[in-house]
C-alpha cells in the first residue's frame, strides 16, 4: 500500500474544508463590505437631506457643529463647484469640485454617492452629495463624507470571528470524518489481510465483518468465494494425488520427453527398469541417459512419422530387461511432448524362448540319433548286411543311438513326472558315502580312460540323510558324470561331503574342467540348456541332466548351487536335509 486509503480520504476532507472556509470568508467579506457601504451611504444620505433643508447661511454658520454631531465631514459646495465650507479643512484653497463624481451624479440625479480616495485628506472616503435648491435652481451642494477605515476595521473583526467559527466547524467535522474514515478503512484492511493470507495459502476459516453495508456484502462474497475455491482446490488435489498414485504405482514404465526431446519425468516403474532415479536422468536426452540404439531408432522413427511406434526394446541398464515400448505424442497438451510406455516382457520372452528352445532342442535331440539309425539301416538294406563284420559294427551303432533315444525319452519322462508331481519319492535313511562310491564305480571306465584323478573326502561319521535311494543315485550320477565329461584328460575331480548348517549335509563335486561363464549359471537348470553346445552333444548328453537334478533336489527339499570360473573348473554343491527318525 503506497498511499493508504486512510490518508487519501482524510486529505480530501481536509482540503475540502480549507476551500470551503476560504471561499466562505471571501464571499462574506465582500457581502459585508457592500452592506456596510450601503448602510453608511443611507445614513449619510439621510443626514445630507436633513442638512439640505436648512437655509444655506445657517449651514455655513453651524457647519462645524453639524459635522461633529453627524460624526462626518461636511463640505458645502456652491453651484460653480467651489468649496464654501469644510468641517475638516480651514484653508479653502480647493479646486473646483464640479468634476467630482458624487457632485456630478447629484447634479444629474439629485443624489450622488462615491467611494474613492481623498487626495485632500489622503484616505479612502465614502461621499454622499445632495443639491441645495432654491425653487428649481441649484444653488450648491451639501456633501457628507466618512472615512472607510472606521468600518473596515469592524468588517475585519467580523470576518475574523466568522473565520474562527468556520475553522472550528471544519476542525470538528474533520474529526468526525476521521472517525468515519477509520471505521470505513478498518474492515477494508481486514479484508486485504485476509485475502493476502488466502493468496499465501494460509486459509483459516472465515472473515467476520459485522457491518451490513457494501463492505459487509463484500466480506460475505469473499467468504463464499474462499469456500468454493477451497472445495475446488481440494478436489484438484485429490485428482492430482490419484493420478500421481496411478503414475507412480503402475508396473509399466512411463517416461515423458519435453518438446526439446529431454527427459521430463519418469515413474517408479521406469526407475526400477532402468535402475536410475528420476533426478539422475531428468533434463538429459535419452541418449545421454542411456545409450540404447534400439530406443533411439524407435524415437527417430516416431519423430519422422509422428505416428505411434510399437517396438520391442532390450534395455541393458541395471539388469537386462526386454520391454514392449509404445512411443506416442502427449495429445492433450499439444506442445510436442512425447510419452514412452515400457511394458516389461522379460519373463514372457524368457518363457517363450524356453518353449521354442525346448521344441527346437527336442526335435534336434530326437532327430540326430534317428538320422543315424535310418542311415545305418539303409546301408544295411543296400547290401552291407552281407558283410558280417561291418554289419555288426553298424548294428552296434544303431543300438547305441536307439539307447540314446531311449535315455532321452526316459529323462523326459522323469522330468515331466517330477513336474507333474507323479513321481513319488520314497524318502528313507540314506548313506551318502555308499551312494557316492556306487556312482563312482559306474563311471570308473571313462575316468580311467581320461586318466582323471578322483579324490574323495568323506568323513566316516556323517549323519544319514533323508532321500530316495534311487533318485539320490541319479542325482549324484548326473553331476559326477558331468564332471567327468567336461574335465579334460589328466584333470582332477574332488567329491567331498560335510555336515552343513541348519540340519543339512552338503556334497561338493568339484572339477578342473572348462568351467561355465558366470552369465550362464542361472540358466543351467533349464531343459536342454547347454553352456557349451557343441561339446555337450559330442559327449552324448541329453541336455536334461541338470534340469532333472534341480527338480529332484527341490523334491527332496534340498538345494543345488553352482560356482564356476571359466577355465578353472566348476563346483556343484548339493545340500540334503538330514534324516530324522520319526519315532
Amino acid at each position, binding site marked *: 500500500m503506497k498511499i493508504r486509503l486512510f490518508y487519501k480520504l482524510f486529505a480530501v476532507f481536509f482540503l475540502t474544508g480549507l476551500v470551503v472556509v476560504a471561499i466562505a470568508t471571501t464571499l462574506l467579506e465582500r457581502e459585508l463590505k457592500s452592506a456596510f457601504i450601503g448602510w453608511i451611504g443611507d445614513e449619510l444620505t439621510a443626514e445630507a437631506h436633513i442638512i439640505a433643508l436648512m437655509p444655506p447661511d445657517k449651514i455655513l454658520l453651524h457647519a462645524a457643529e453639524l459635522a461633529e454631531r453627524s460624526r462626518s465631514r461636511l463640505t458645502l459646495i456652491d453651484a460653480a463647484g467651489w468649496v464654501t465650507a469644510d468641517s475638516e479643512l480651514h484653508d479653502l484653497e480647493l479646486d473646483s469640485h464640479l468634476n467630482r463624481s458624487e457632485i456630478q451624479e447629484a447634479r444629474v440625479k439629485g443624489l450622488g454617492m462615491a467611494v474613492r480616495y481623498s487626495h485632500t485628506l489622503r484616505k479612502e472616503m465614502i461621499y454622499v452629495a445632495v443639491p441645495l435648491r432654491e425653487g428649481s435652481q441649484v444653488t450648491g451642494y451639501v456633501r457628507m463624507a466618512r472615512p472607510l477605515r472606521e468600518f473596515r476595521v469592524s468588517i475585519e473583526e467580523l470576518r475574523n470571528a466568522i473565520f474562527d467559527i468556520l475553522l472550528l466547524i471544519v476542525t470538528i467535522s474533520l474529526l468526525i470524518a476521521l472517525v468515519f474514515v477509520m471505521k470505513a478503512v478498518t474492515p477494508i484492511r481486514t479484508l486485504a489481510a485476509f485475502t493476502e493470507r488466502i493468496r499465501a495459502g494460509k486459509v483459516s476459516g472465515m472473515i467476520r465483518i459485522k457491518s451490513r453495508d457494501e463492505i459487509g456484502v463484500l466480506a460475505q462474497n469473499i467468504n463464499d468465494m474462499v469456500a468454493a475455491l477451497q472445495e475446488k482446490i481440494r478436489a484438484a488435489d485429490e485428482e492430482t494425488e490419484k493420478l500421481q498414485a496411478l503414475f507412480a504405482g503402475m508396473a509399466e514404465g512411463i517416461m515423458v520427453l519435453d518438446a*526439446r*526431446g529431454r527427459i521430463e519425468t519418469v515413474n517408479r516403474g521406469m526407475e526400477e527398469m532402468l535402475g536410475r532415479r528420476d533426478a539422475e536422468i531428468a533434463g*538429459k*536426452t535419452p*541418449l*545421454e541417459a542411456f*545409450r*540404447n*540404439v534400439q530406443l*533411439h531408432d524407435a524415437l527417430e522413427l516416431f519423430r519422422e512419422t509422428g505416428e505411434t511406434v510399437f517396438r520391442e526394446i532390450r534395455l541393458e541398464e541395471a539388469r537386462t530387461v526386454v520391454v514392449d515400448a509404445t512411443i506416442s505424442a502427449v495429445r492433450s497438451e499439444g506442445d510436442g511432448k512425447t510419452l514412452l510406455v515400457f511394458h516389461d516382457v522379460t519373463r514372457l520372452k524368457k518363457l517363450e524362448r524356453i518353449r521354442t528352445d525346448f521344441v527346437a532342442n527336442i526335435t534336434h535331440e530326437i532327430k540326430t540319433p534317428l538320422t543315424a539309425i535310418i542311415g545305418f539301416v539303409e546301408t544295411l538294406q543296400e547290401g552291407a548286411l552281407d558283410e558280417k563284420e561291418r554289419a555288426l559294427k553298424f548294428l552296434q551303432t544303431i543300438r547305441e543311438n536307439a539307447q540314446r533315444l531311449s535315455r532321452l525319452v526316459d529323462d523326459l519322462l522323469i522330468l515331466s513326472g517330477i513336474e507333474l508331481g507323479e513321481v513319488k519319492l520314497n524318502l528313507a535313511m540314506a548313506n551318502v558315502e555308499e551312494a557316492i562310491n556306487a556312482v563312482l564305480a559306474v563311471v570308473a571306465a571313462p575316468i580311467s580312460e581320461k586318466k582323471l584323478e578322483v579324490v574323495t573326502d568323506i568323513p566316516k561319521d556323517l549323519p544319514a540323510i533323508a532321500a530316495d535311494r534311487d533318485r539320490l543315485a541319479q542325482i549324484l550320477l548326473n553331476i559326477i558324470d558331468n564332471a567327468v565329461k567336461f574335465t579334460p584328460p589328466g584333470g582332477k575331480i574332488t567329491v567331498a561331503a560335510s555336515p552343513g548348517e541348519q540340519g543339512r549335509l552338503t556334497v561338493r563335486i568339484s572339477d578342473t574342467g*572348462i568351467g561355465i*561363464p558366470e552369465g550362464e549359471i542361472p540358466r543351467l537348470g533349464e531343459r536342454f540348456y547347454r553352456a*557349451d*553346445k*557343441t561339446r555337450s552333444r559330442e559327449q552324448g548328453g541329453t541336455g536334461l541332466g541338470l534340469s532333472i537334478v534341480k527338480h529332484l533336489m527341490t523334491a527332496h527339499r534340498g538345494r543345488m548351487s553352482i560356482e564356476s570360473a*571359466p*577355465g578353472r573348473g566348476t563346483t556343484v554343491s548339493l545340500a540334503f536335509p538330514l534324516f530324522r527318525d520319526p519315532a
Partner: protein
Amino acid sequence: MEQKRHTSAEYERELQEIKDGLLYLGALTEKALEKGSVALLERNSDLAREIVCQDDRIDRLDVELEEKCIRLLALRQPAARDLRFITTAIKITGHLERIGDMASTIAEKVLILNEIPQIKPYIDLPRMVEIARGMIRRSLDALVREDVALANAVRQEDAVIDQLNEQIFRELLTFMMEDPHKIQVSLYIMQISKSLERIADHAEGIADMVIYMVTGKSVRHQPACAEKG
C-alpha cells in the same frame, strides 16, 4: 530480441544434435563389439555378417556428424567451451568410426574362425571385449557428465588391455610352436586381440579429448600412470 532467442535455441539444439549423434555412434560401436563377442563365442556367423554390414552405417554417420560440426563452426563461430566441444566432437567421431572399423575387422575374422575348429575355449578375449566395451561406455559417460575423474579412470584401464593382449600373444605363440596346424587359427585370434587393443587405444583417445574439452588441457601422449621414482 525474439529473433536472438530463437537463434540461440536453434544453436543449442544443433549442439545437442551433435552430442546425441556422438552418443548414438558410440552406442552403435559398443553394440557392434558386443555382437562380435557373441558371434565369436557362439560361433554365430549370421551375427558376424550383420556387424560387417552395419559398419557402412557407422561410416555414414561419422561423415554426417563431421559435416554438422564443420557447418556449425562455419555458421555460428562458436567460442571458448563450445569451440572446444566441437573440435572434440570431430576427434571423437573419428575415434568412434575407427572403433567401428575394428569391430568390423573382428567380425570378418570371426567369420573365418567359425569355419575352422576351435582350438581352445575363449577366456581372455571375452574379458578384453568386456573391458574395451566398458572403456567406450565410460569414456562417453565422461563426455555426458563432463567428468574428468572418470575419463582418467578410463585412461588407466588401457594398461589392462595391453597386458591381456600380450598374454594372448605369448599363449598363442606356444600353441603355434607346439602344433603348426594351429598357426592359422592363432593368427586370426591374434588379429582379433590386436584389434581389441586398438579399440581400447581409441577409447583412451576419447577420454583424452573429454579431459581436453572440460579442462582445456591436452593430456594426449602422456602416460596414464606416472612412473614412480
